[in-house]
């Protein structure tokens, strides 16, 4: 068991190296000359040359990549071209709101979506099932910021139940913190709920048709115990996989949700960096989130072995 975990953890190192190489090479993949684009239309030749030097585009790719990876390994993601501050410091200042938003959304989505999928599978073909699945299709079709504005308009502006925008740090109390996160996490969780509910329903349908479920029914076990203990446990692996994969949706969606609800997190940092064409900041954020994503899926793999002892690689 321990040997497997160690092997699995070590296996993520080459994955991270490939991710880092890919994120780094974006500078070279992008069509056109990034230095000219970043400098903008009013830039002089000296400006362009300075930016090219700053990005290291004047030196060979491999040399520059080796240098950059050494810095990344030491936890140095470079400096902002606009403020001159280290990117890690900028990320550190903004990480709390984003992390809060993502964790609250994750919990909310799992708590809502899994029972939804289970009930839909249990009553497959009923109006409840159709309603849930119609909601799931809608969830895939409405962009996160549209849901966000809709929720903010109805529940904050019209009904005045919750604050419209903003963020309160957790250190100022649990409720003020949560109050500001309810609407954003519902908006952000919309697609995620749709995704998890659909997979839960599909796997549960398969599991519920198996013999041991019939046995459980035959011996007089209650429906709730059958659904949530016997069936859900065996449907868990695909569901956990999708929860892991869906974190990519959360990361991308968080950038937009923060913009709608004026949350001063990494999304705001990203958008400011886009406006200023501050590429080192964007690169740092993308790299950090990609690593987070790889680590989340590492955790998912490790959870597998706890859920299904047969799984060994």
């Amino acid at each position: 068991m321990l040997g497997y975990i160690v092997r699995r953890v070590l296996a993520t190192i080459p994955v991270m190296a490939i991710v880092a190489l890919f994120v780094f090479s974006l500078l070279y993949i992008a069509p056109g000359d990034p230095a000219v684009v970043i400098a903008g239309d009013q830039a002089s030749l000296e400006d362009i040359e300075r930016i090219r030097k700053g990005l290291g585009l004047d030196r060979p790719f491999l040399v520059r990549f080796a240098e950059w990876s050494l810095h990344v390994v030491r936890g140095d993601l470079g400096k902002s071209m606009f403020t001159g501050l280290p990117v890690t410091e900028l990320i550190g200042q903004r990480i709390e709101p984003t992390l809060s938003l993502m964790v609250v959304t994750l919990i909310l989505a799992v708590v809502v979506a899994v029972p939804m999928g289970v009930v839909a599978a249990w009553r497959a073909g009923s109006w409840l099932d159709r309603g849930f699945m119609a909601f799931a299709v809608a969830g895939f079709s409405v962009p996160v910021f549209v849901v966000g504005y809709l929720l903010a308009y109805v529940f904050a502006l019209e009904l005045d139940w919750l604050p419209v925008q903003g963020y309160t740090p957790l250190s100022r109390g649990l409720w003020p913190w949560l109050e500001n996160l309810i609407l954003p996490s519902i908006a952000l969780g919309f697609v995620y709920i749709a995704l998890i509910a659909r997979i839960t329903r599909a796997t549960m349908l398969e599991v519920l048709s198996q013999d041991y479920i019939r046995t459980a029914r035959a011996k007089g076990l209650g429906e709730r115990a059958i659904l949530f203990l016997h069936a859900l446990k065996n449907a868990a692996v695909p569901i956990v996989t999708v929860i892991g994969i869906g974190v990519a949706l959360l990361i991308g969606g968080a950038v937009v949700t923060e913009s709608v609800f004026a949350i001063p997190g990494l999304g705001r940092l990203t958008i400011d960096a886009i406006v200023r064409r501050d590429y080192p900041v964007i690169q740092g954020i993308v790299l950090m989130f990609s690593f987070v994503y790889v680590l989340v899926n590492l955790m998912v793999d490790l959870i597998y072995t706890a859920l299904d002892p047969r799984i060994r690689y």
Partner: protein
Amino acid sequence: MNLHTHDAAQPGFAIAAELPDILPPVRERRGVWGFVWRHPTLSIGLAILGVMLLIAIFAPWLGTVDPTALAPVKRTREPGAEFWFGSDAYGRDIYSRVLYGARISLGVGFSVAILASALGLVIGLVSGYLRRVDGIVMRVMDGVMSVPPILLAISLMALTRASVQNVILAITIAEFPRVARLVRGVVLSLREQPYVEAAITAGTSTPRIIVRHILPNTMAPLCVQATYICGSAMIIESILSFIGAGTPPTTPSWGNIMADGRTLWQVKPYIIFFPAIFLSLSVLGINLLGDGLRDALDPRMAKRL
């Protein structure tokens, strides 16, 4: 000898008496309505998408004005007789912008779907069939897929000029590894099939096996995947434009119209509302089409999802 005519009965052949109608006749629905009856999801999706396509094609003749014409005097007018969907902060007609926006948004969606499918198909076929390159190609695909698609598109857009072509390229790069993975999976299971082994034994050349025996069987899942990519690309385009990393701000794409309404949303929510409805409906149509296609092409999956 004509066996089908009863009157010319041969000696020794008994003619069966006509069976009485025990079973009620199966009412077979034919034509367009029969298709709609058998594939309701697919039909609704096609209908929505069809309407959006017509809107995109006939935008200039649907009572629109120049979608980029500024009229500061008439800015932020509520929806009414002059401006059906209202006017934005520069006095531009939102109705016209939304209708012309259909061209950009659908154009981006379709282009990405076609490009990503083609690229993913080629890479998936090669990688699934040639073991030597498979390892390397799939590790690279894993690397690309580890970067959340929206962030990948954002960073590419930060490095290039804002243009519709670059948005299409950026979203394609973010989406094609999923197609490659899918195609590779199908190829891996197909190459173990007896008929492929038979073709190999018969001495069929590798390119011919790929084109004649493998490729046709990847088409069904590929079509389904392409529709989902189209929907996802339209959403990513709107998100990119919304946060200022997409098509040039003057281009009337649905994301850009909504980005224009961002600062005014508390007082003039209709600026965001109308493009949002069109975008959501279009993506819904595409997703329904995808679900319908999947059900029609793979009836076993239909029961599950």
